[in-house]
Structures are given as C-alpha cells and as structure tokens.
C-alpha cells in the first residue's frame, strides 16, 4: 500500500498556479496539474495560452504570483537549485554553443546538470540513441540543422537522467521524420519511468504519445483528458473548436469544450 503511494506521488505538480504579469496580463489562472512517473502530460493551447509560462515557473525563470510548482516534491521557486537537480529541459529550438562540437556541448551541459561520471562512450551511446550520425559528433554546432540540435538537446536530457522532463514545443519546426524519431524517444523515456510535461501545438503527436492532454485557454486549463478518454474524440476537431473559441475571445466556449470540462 505504501509502495503504491510512493509510486503515485507526482514528480511535477502545479498547485493553484497563478501568474499575473506586470502589465496586468493574466498568463495563468489557478492552474492545477500533476504528472506522475511514467506519464506524459501534453499541454495544448494557442500562443499566449500559458504553456511556456508554466514551464518557465517550473524552471524558476519567473516567479508565480500565487500558488506553487513542485518538482519531485520540492518547491521550484523557493529551492530552485535543489528542484532543478530533478528536471531536464528541452526547448522549442535547442541552441548550443556554435564554437563547440556536439560532444563538447553535451559534455558541458551534462556536467552542469551534475553528472560528471560519464565517459565519451556514454556520450556516444546517448547521441547514437537520439539518432545523430557518428560523423557529426565532433563537428561544430554552427553547421548543425535544427533537427540535429534538437537531438543533442534530448541527448543532454537523457544523460542528465532526471526523473522529470520539461519539453517546450520540442517538435516545432522539425520535419516529419525527425518529429517521428523524437516522439519515439519521448515514448521511450516515459517507459523508463520519467514524468514528462510537454507543451505543444502538435495535436497529432500529443494524442499519439500522451497519457494526459490538457487544453489551456488564457491561462485556464479548460480541458483535461486521459488518453483513454480521448479515444472516442476527434482531437483535431476539438482543438479547432477550441482555437476558434480562443480566437474569438468572446462568447461561451464551444459545446465540445464544455463537455470535456
């Protein structure tokens, strides 16, 4: 019974998270979400819905106006250094140091994440796993495509071996093949027991790999469904409905969203 409780403890948790910017814009309104080990939570939403704000609060880049963000039970904003030991991050457009090779970049960021026990062979294994070709290992990043940089980013996250992973629109701008490879990798990480919170516009991938999908509208989590609940729902239609409601910014939410809520 106790083991089950430990297993169920969320690795990422937003508790009544609210963020009002200095200009008065409410980016998050009382957000509640949890991501447990072995789960992928996909946040869907338009621009300005609050997806990136949520991730920024988890990474302590901004402070919440009220509420808390916990990583592995540690408050990300009151003890950020301790909390960040438990999380890896891959951004929308992974940017590394252009004068460094892939190997040098991976080495730096992995050691920065507190992992100094790795050897070159470990880095190579991780880079092979993410699908980077061997001849690119010792090439400078300035010659890399976005897909190759994203692969390095995910390799860094794998090597950091943190229990939780934050992905900020990680497949944005990737070609279909690279996107598919990326999805496979994220699925593998979930299977290894990582708790993954992913913000994305990509509804197909969200449905394909997520255990939970949440739709954010103007900082409010207006919909939250498990993968099983989404099986009978046309997520594309749902999303378009949602986007239409969001774009109009007036009137009642669509019937479909109401149903989901």
């Amino acid at each position: 019974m106790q083991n089950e409780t430990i297993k169920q403890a969320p690795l990422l948790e937003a508790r009544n998270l609210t963020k009002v910017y200095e200009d008065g814009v409410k980016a998050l309104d009382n957000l509640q979400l949890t991501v447990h080990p072995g789960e992928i939570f996909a946040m869907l939403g338009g621009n300005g819905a609050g997806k990136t704000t949520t991730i920024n609060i988890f990474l302590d880049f901004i402070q919440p106006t009220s509420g808390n963000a916990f990583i592995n039970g540690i408050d990300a904003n009151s003890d950020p250094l301790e909390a960040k030991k438990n999380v890896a991050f891959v951004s929308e457009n992974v940017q590394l140091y252009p004068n460094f090779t892939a190997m040098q970049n991976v080495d730096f960021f992995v050691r920065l994440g507190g992992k100094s026990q790795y050897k070159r062979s470990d880095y190579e294994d991780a880079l092979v796993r993410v699908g980077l070709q061997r001849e690119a290992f010792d090439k400078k990043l300035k010659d890399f495509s976005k897909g190759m940089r994203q692969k390095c980013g995910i390799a860094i996250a794998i090597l950091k071996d943190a229990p939780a992973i934050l992905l900020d629109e990680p497949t944005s701008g990737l070609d279909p093949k690279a996107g598919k490879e990326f999805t496979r990798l994220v699925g593998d990480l979930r299977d290894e027991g990582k708790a993954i919170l992913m913000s994305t516009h990509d509804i197909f991938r969200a449905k394909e790999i997520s255990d939970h999908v949440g739709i954010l509208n103007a900082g409010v989590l207006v919909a939250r469904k498990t993968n099983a609940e989404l099986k009978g729902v046309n997520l594309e239609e749902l999303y378009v409905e949602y986007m239409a409601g969001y774009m109009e910014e007036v009137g009642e939410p669509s019937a479909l969203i109401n149903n989901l809520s």
Partner: protein
Amino acid sequence: MLSILIQKELKNILLSPKFFATFLVCSILILISIFIGINEYNNSVLQYQTNQQIAQQDIEQATGWMQVRNLLHREPTPMQIFVSGLHFDVGRVSGISSFDDVKLVRSPYSDETLFAIFRFIDFAFIVQVVLSLFAILFTYDAINGERENGTLKLAFSNPVSRVQYLFSKFAGTWLGLIIPLLIPIMIGLLLVIVFGVPVSESDWIRIIGLIGLSILYVTFFIGIGLFISSVTRKSSLSFLLLLVIWISGVLILPRMGVMAAGQIVDIESVAQIEAKQEAFERERWESYSASLSEIWGEREQEMEGMTEEERRAYRDEKEWEWLEVDDAARKQVQSDIIENNRTLLEESQNRKKVQEQLAFNLARISPVSSFRLAAMNLAGTDIDMKSRYEESMRQYKDEFTKFTERKQAESGNSGGFRIEVDSNEGVKLDFGRNDQTLDTSDMPRYSAPVVQAGTSFGNSILDFGLLIVFIIATFGGSFFAFLRYDMR
C-alpha cells in the same frame, strides 16, 4: 560547478574568432610598439651622449669661465618605451648661464614634426584604446547574447546559481583578455633585455606596476561590459551603449575635465602678466619721481634765505646724506618691482597648479584618465617631468655659477681675447691662455632628477584606488542586475 562554468567560458572565448583577432592585433601592436620604442630610446641615448660631448667641448674651448655657456640635456629613460607620456613634448635641452633662466626647449616633436603627426603608439596607448575596445567586444553580449541564443535558458535549467554564473563570465573573459595582454608584453620585455636596454631594478618594479595597472583597467571595462549586458535584453543595444560609454570615457570626459577646469580657474596670459608688471613698474617710478621732486622742494626750502655761497657749502655738507636717501628710495622702488614681479609670477604659477589639479580631478570622472595619469606617474613621464628637470637644472645652475665665479677669480683672466692685425702675418687671435682648453675636471656635474619607484607608486595611489572603486561599482552593479535578470 564554478570550474565547469569557467572552463566553458574560457574554452568558448579561446575558440572564438574574436580571441584570435584580439591576440593577433595585441601581439602585433605591442611588439611593434616595444621594438620602435627600443630603437627610439637607443637613438635618444646616442643623441644625448653626443650632445653631452659637444657641450663638454664647447666648455673646454671657451675663452674663460665667465664665457662658458653650459648646455644641459634631459636624459632618456627606458620607461619611455612603455609610456612615452610627455617625453616627446617636453624640451630636451636648456642653457645654463648666469644671464638666462633655465628653460627646456627643443622637444623631440618640435625637432621632428613628421613624427608628431603620426605619434608614437606606446604600450599604455594600446591598453587604453585597443584593449578597452576588445574588452567591450568580449563582454557586450556576455549575458544578453546567451539569452538571445537560448543557451542561458538551457544552462539555468540546471542547478546553477546566478552568482556563480556571472563570476564565471567574468573569470573566463578576464583570462581571455589577459592572455593577449601578457604574452606579447612578456615577449616585448624579452626584446628589451636582448637589445640591452639598461632597465634598473626600480624600472622593473615600475613595469610590474604598469602591467598591474593595465590589468585593473581592462578589468574595469570587463565590469562595465558585463553590467550593460546584464541590464539590456538585446546585444545590439548593449553594443551601442558600450560604444557610447567608450567614446565618452576615452575621448570626451578627460578632455571635458580639462576644458571645465580652464573655465572654472581663470589663468592670466603671459601678456596680461607682463602688462600688469609694466603698469606697476610705471606707477612706482612715477611715484618715485613725484616723491623725489617733493624731497628736492623740501631741500630748497631748507636752503631758503641762504646766499649762493652758503647754499653750495650746505649742499656739499648734505650731498652724501641726500644721495643715500635718494639711492635708498630708488633701491626700494627696484626691490618693490622685483617683489611684485615675483608675486605675480608665483600667483600665476599657483593658479596654474590649482587649474591642473582641478583638471585632473575632473578628468578622473573617467577611469581612462586615472589609468593614463597613473601610467605616466609610474613611468616618470608625467606632467611634473618638466618642472622636475627645470628645478634640478636651476639648482645645478646656482652651483655652476658659483663654480665659474670662483674659477674666474682664481685665473684672473677676464676671458676676453685680443685681435692683432698685421700686414705681414694677417689676423691673429690671442686668447691669453696659450691655446690650452679649460680644465673641467673639478667642474660640478649635473645629475638628472631621480624619482624613486616608491614615490612614483605613491603619486599613483589615488588613481589605483579610483580604478579599484570603479571596478567594485561595475561588478556590484552587474551582480545586482543579473540577480534580477529575466532569463526568458
């Protein structure tokens, strides 16, 4: 964690094209500057020695000690290789005679005007202008550039403290700039040794001080670069701001300080002082004439009613007394005039000192002035170099004048010469000393003023202190700004 960050910063800088450019430019400039400086110093020494020999020969060939016109030359210093300061602008030679005041004339640039157009670029100038520019180039995007690139977010998704991160930025950049400074200067110093420049122990201490000062100066520019990069979001804006700060600090503020001091402390021109002296002189002589007329009127009154015979007898009796009175009055006038001239000159010099001091203090609002002034003080090529030399030459002049007077008295020779014109033998010059040269073996020798290294450091301590204050202020500001920096 800190060592990982510093290693990354250093590696990132060492692999960047800007490090290569900095190293190349600094190496070329510093080595060429020292090489030219050594040549210039050797030429100056050669010229100095030749001039000394010519002056010595002139003395020996003089007709007598009263006719000797000694010439003193400013001695070159090895420190001019690194900080030329006012070396090329201050005169190199002054005549020493009882008739003329000491005044250094014929500066290197007044003799060779071509070189004044393309002035000598010394080590201090390279640090002041070139390295400060490179320091800006290294730091303008240190923080906001990483934000723009996205690497700041990735780095701070790890357990990294902001203080450690900023410190690593400073340490990495600092090492990246100190390498292009130290390696060429070390090679340059090796050149100085190889070319046999006589660098004294005191000079080595000054050189070490100069390198330390340069490091402090570069550190300030790293600090200001980090500060501006921490308070701006875009690297293009920080570069623009830093360029404005650099232009203001290096080119405008020091000059504005001097201009403001000129406006605040008014100094009379030489013509104005001379006009004042003449006016006082005229007024005193007129007053003297008036009082003399009055005295003579009183004397006439004393003789009123006397016969011509009695008058003559009275005048003969009083003649010496009256002459003494008149002479005393005249001497008083002369003494007043001399005293007034001296006071006016002293006042002018004092005001000039006040103006100089104010100009320096106002210019010190820019750390560039502190660096420049401290470097010149350390090298001994500062603004006091001229007065230091002229003062020591004046002291020598007194000693030399006494010596020549004594020698003249001993020889009993007027120092003149006789010209004999004979229809058979032609013109014959007789110097009255059997064509022998003057014996100068016991003539007092001039020694250039010596400034101890300790004194030079003492004179620079304010500027060293100011640079440290500027560094603390910029780093304090950087840390404060970065602790509040929005990473997104």
